[in-house]
């Protein structure tokens, strides 16, 4: 009998002692008073010391972008600390370059508040809000891409965004994922996104599992990838589900700018991956200023369409059809390989590099 009891008592005794010591340290050592948090020199919050900067900002309704859920791997939540700059952590040295580290840029998810702190964030981040919506529709447009329509319930004045920007969806406790706004029609209380199912992907499998009537929470709008107010020709280069942010860009250009041409270069793997093909063909027929160049990587004999597709990669179609590169600006969204090869092609065609905007995923 004692042969069983003694080991158990010893093991549990040691575990309890260690646990008690940790709890004691947590209560008496790891407690920091309250700190002043100043944002952009104008807003001052009093927050509990010992919390992370991103959590403190979140509680005060300042929503920084984040794709990794505060693990310090995406680098989106970078802020500039102007007063009370903490020493950089090794994770930050990987994601932020040396010059920025010296100027006080830090990851807000890695910065623990131990004393008063002042930070600078881009002014537009202060206008980001939390939205609550209900799913109105969720339909497959290809075998793995779902188009999800969301009705915005809260706040009542709805969502105002720039064409090409994205929203961060809450997909789990503390986890958010970004998806581009894909609405063709601009409405304050409705928004559409397009989600490609990635096997074992946290965000896409969550959003694919939602049905009509389910509620969801998101933040936005984020991103420097939006239609610029110029008079240049708009060149959209999209790969796969990268088509999503192009739709607001195309429709806004056609509606708002009577003298800007739009060209859409759209590359997918096979005919089955192609979506909104008919819509763009109709748009091309109705709008002389819109030109549509779909490209299939693999062209099968049995394609159920009479359209004469180009076969190959998008950059090949770009090379063959793009003119007036120096009077154009380009918007690219798709996988990195496609973006890199297309940027090379665009530069060769004379598009200035500062007018090439892209969103890699």
């Amino acid at each position, binding site marked *: 009998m004692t042969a069983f009891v003694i*080991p158990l008592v010893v093991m549990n005794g040691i575990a309890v002692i*260690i*646990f008690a010591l940790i709890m004691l340290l947590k209560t008496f050592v*790891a407690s920091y008073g309250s700190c002043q948090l100043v944002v952009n020199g104008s807003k001052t919050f009093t927050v509990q010391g010992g919390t992370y900067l991103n959590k403190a900002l979140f509680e005060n309704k300042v929503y920084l972008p984040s794709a990794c859920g505060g693990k310090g791997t995406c680098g989106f939540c970078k802020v500039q600390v102007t007063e009370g700059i903490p*020493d950089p952590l090794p994770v930050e*040295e990987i994601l932020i370059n040396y010059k920025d580290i010296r100027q006080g840029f830090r990851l807000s998810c890695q910065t623990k508040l131990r004393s008063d702190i002042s930070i600078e964030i881009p002014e537009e981040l202060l206008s980001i809000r939390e939205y609550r919506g209900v799913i109105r529709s969720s339909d497959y447009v290809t075998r793995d891409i779902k188009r999800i329509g969301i009705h915005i319930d809260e706040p009542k004045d709805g969502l105002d965004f720039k064409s090409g920007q994205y929203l961060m969806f809450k997909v789990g406790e503390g986890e958010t994922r970004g998806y581009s706004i894909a609405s063709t029609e601009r409405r304050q209380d409705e928004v559409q996104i397009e989600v490609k199912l990635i096997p074992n992907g946290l965000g896409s499998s969550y959003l694919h599992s939602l049905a009509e009537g389910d509620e969801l929470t998101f933040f936005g709008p984020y991103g420097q990838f939006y239609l610029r107010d110029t008079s240049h020709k708009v060149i959209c280069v999209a790969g796969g589900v990268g088509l999503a942010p192009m739709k607001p860009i195309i429709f806004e250009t056609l509606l708002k700018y009577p003298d800007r041409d739009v060209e859409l270069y759209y590359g997918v793997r096979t005919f089955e991956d192609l979506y909104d093909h008919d819509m763009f063909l109709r748009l091309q027929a109705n709008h002389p200023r819109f030109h549509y160049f779909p490209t299939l990587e693999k062209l099968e004999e049995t394609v159920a369409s009479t359209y004469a597709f180009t076969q190959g990669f998008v950059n090949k179609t770009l090379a063959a059809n793009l003119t007036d590169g120096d009077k154009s600006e380009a918007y690219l969204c798709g996988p990195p390989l496609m973006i890199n090869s297309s940027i090379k092609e665009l530069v060769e065609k004379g598009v200035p590099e500062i007018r090439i905007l892209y969103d890699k995923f």
Partner: protein
Amino acid sequence: MSLALIVLASAITNNIALTYFLGMCPFIAISKSLRGAAGMGLAVTVVVVITTTVNYFAYRFVLVPLRLEFLAFVVFIMSIAGIVQMLEILVERYFPSLYSIFGIFLPLITVNCVILAVSLFMVLREYTFWGTVAYSFGSGLGWMIAITAMAGLRKHLAFSSPVKNLGDAGITIVLAGLMALAFLGFQGMLA
């Protein structure tokens, strides 16, 4: 065996990273930058000395008198996990600048097998108390030497072009093998 000999033997001739190939995961992963490698090495050294000393007392004065030597694994793992957490809290509160150097490595150390291995070797080799301290310090120091040397080599690797498919981690393992061969040269230096 004098204490200095134990330190030298465990740090150089029986280097824990290069002769036993223990703690390989952080050895490959954290040796990308010199600062990070030095921080990790320092953290391992500090933690290994503290945990092995605590484990020495737990083993000698609790487990052996009660004839519970078979519980050594469980007790060692529990004490390592607990001590690492306590250290993290203490360092963060009282040495914030030190925390910024090896703060994030501390939780990683919980699963670094060097720490457990040193405690287990301590039992196998039946060191005295000061022998234990010297041995654990030497092992931590040896691991730190190995990882900082590797980080220095990898800095040069950035300017060379190894075989394409050998990539980053692959060539690092080859390098570790070559370093181990070089350390073999120390064998026999200390009888």
